[in-house]
């Protein structure tokens, strides 16, 4: 069972370039999330999707877009990368288990924008 996979593992990107971070889950979870983690700031929610075909804005959505064409995939796109988007990006999905909800996180993508 793979759980949640993210690609690439790491990437160095020139400012102004377009970049798509991939996230795939094989657990058939309805809800998926994208977070960024910066030193000293914890994790901040970028975008989320409660179910295939719907998306919503999180805490820091500017400069990012997402799509949810199916249950398994939730790509995050940086249309024109800027250095302030240098961060570690985590994808997550959630499921309700016996009365509570649990988020499962991917291994992360380390992105550096120069």
């Amino acid at each position: 069972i793979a759980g949640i996979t993210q690609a690439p593992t790491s990437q160095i990107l020139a400012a102004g370039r377009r970049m798509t971070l991939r996230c795939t889950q094989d657990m058939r979870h309805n809800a998926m999330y994208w977070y960024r983690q910066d030193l000293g700031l914890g994790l901040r929610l970028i975008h989320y999707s409660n179910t295939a075909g719907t998306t919503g804005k999180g805490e820091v959505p500017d400069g990012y877009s997402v799509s949810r064409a199916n249950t398994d995939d939730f790509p995050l796109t940086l249309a024109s990368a800027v250095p302030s988007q240098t961060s570690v990006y985590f994808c997550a999905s959630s499921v309700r288990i016996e009365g509570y909800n649990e988020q499962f996180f991917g291994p992360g993508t380390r992105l550096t924008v120069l």
Partner: protein
Amino acid sequence: LAKTTQPISMDSYEGQEVNITCSHNNIATNDYITWYQQFPSQGPRFIIQGYKTKVTNEVASLFIPADRKSSTLSLPRVSLSDTAVYYCLVGVHQGGKLIFGQGTELSVKP
């Protein structure tokens, strides 16, 4: 959105019980309280979730007072491998906007 406040860091020794308290004064009626653990270079991992009173599982206990304006994660007899960052979250899952906050960096010493 309910904001959480936790201590930035805590130190402990192996074998001790560790209690990490989180304040969430503006928690909403439908909000649950959830704790996650994160090791360096890994994504967070779910520890425990509760709504009120006390919840216990194989790794931790969660104490929530009647007013629900705070919660305490209790880790019994910590080991070196419990060194990690612990996050308190308040919100409704399957509804989007969960706020992680800065977390508490727990350091367990031998």
